[in-house]
């Protein structure tokens, strides 16, 4: 099914939401538990690096080429003990320094400004099961909050599909 950008006018920033897989529930099959990334983050971009290359031939013509993008996103926010995603990042990066697990995390990105136009519409969504999470800094100003700054590079298998969000909880269905 073809997803399109829906609505009219400008789109609110909160319509693009990233979730970190922080666990599983149930079995046969197990259902991922998705925890939102960015509750107190004021600015974060879904940055796409197309690895553009330019070559000029002997006739003076410029040939440009791009590759599939490397997508990354940075988050900087005060630590909150109730925020599951950043607490998991803290455990893997600060407590365990587990480089292997930090390079095989799963992230769901929901583009909640889109629709498939169906009767029970879903949003365009994508998962990456080999994301690298780097915790870059942990600190902040005296008297202020403890701030964790992270960078996630989305990687691994990319699966697209549809998602719904109910009471802040996403549900993802891969495209058939």
């Amino acid at each position, binding site marked *: 099914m073809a997803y399109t950008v829906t609505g009219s006018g400008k789109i609110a*920033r*909160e319509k*693009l939401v990233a979730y970190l897989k922080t666990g599983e529930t149930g079995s046969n099959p197990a259902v991922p538990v998705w925890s939102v990334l960015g*509750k*107190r983050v004021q600015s974060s971009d879904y940055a796409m690096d197309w690895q553009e290359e330019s070559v000029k031939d002997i006739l003076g013509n410029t040939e440009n080429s791009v590759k599939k993008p490397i997508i990354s996103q940075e988050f900087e926010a005060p630590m909150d003990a109730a925020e599951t995603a950043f607490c998991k990042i803290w455990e893997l990066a600060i407590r365990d320094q587990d480089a292997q697990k930090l390079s095989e995390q799963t992230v769901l990105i929901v583009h909640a400004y889109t629709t498939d136009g169906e009767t029970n519409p879903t949003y365009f969504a994508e998962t990456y099961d080999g994301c690298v999470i780097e915790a870059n800094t942990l600190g902040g100003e005296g008297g202020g909050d403890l701030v964790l700054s992270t960078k996630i590079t989305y990687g691994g298998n990319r699966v697209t599909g549809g998602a719904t969000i109910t009471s802040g909880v996403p549900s993802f269905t891969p495209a058939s």
Partner: protein
Amino acid sequence: MSLQSDSPRRLVNDDSPAAVSRAIVNLLNTYQDKPDIVTMEYLTEENGLALSVIQVPYVVEQYICGGYLAAYDCELIYRTIPTTDAKRLEADETLDATVTWLIKNIGSIDLTGVTITKIERQSLASLSARYNNGAEDHIASLHLNYERIG
């Protein structure tokens, strides 16, 4: 996005300001030593103790998931008819004590979806206005921050 001081302020346009005001009034009315029952922006011609919002709460920090941190500026107005300087000073002291109690107990406010993250006194109680009937308004101002997570 952190709203810089030279950017237009984005006003809070949901029900959180009213919820915060109601919670503060309800909390203050549990304080036994206040000089009068606390109302919302209402005083009689001669007396009263009212919470008044100085300006519409505005967004200080906007979060990418839709939540925000808001600034809420208010004042407590104590109207009374003091007949002596001693009573005038007592009005300020009573109002300051009420504000001190509020600052100490603000953490007991439990609102769904809204968390008061900071409260600070902006001014000590002092005379603000005097009327022909001898009534005086003594005012202490406060600044609060509250958060709504989207």
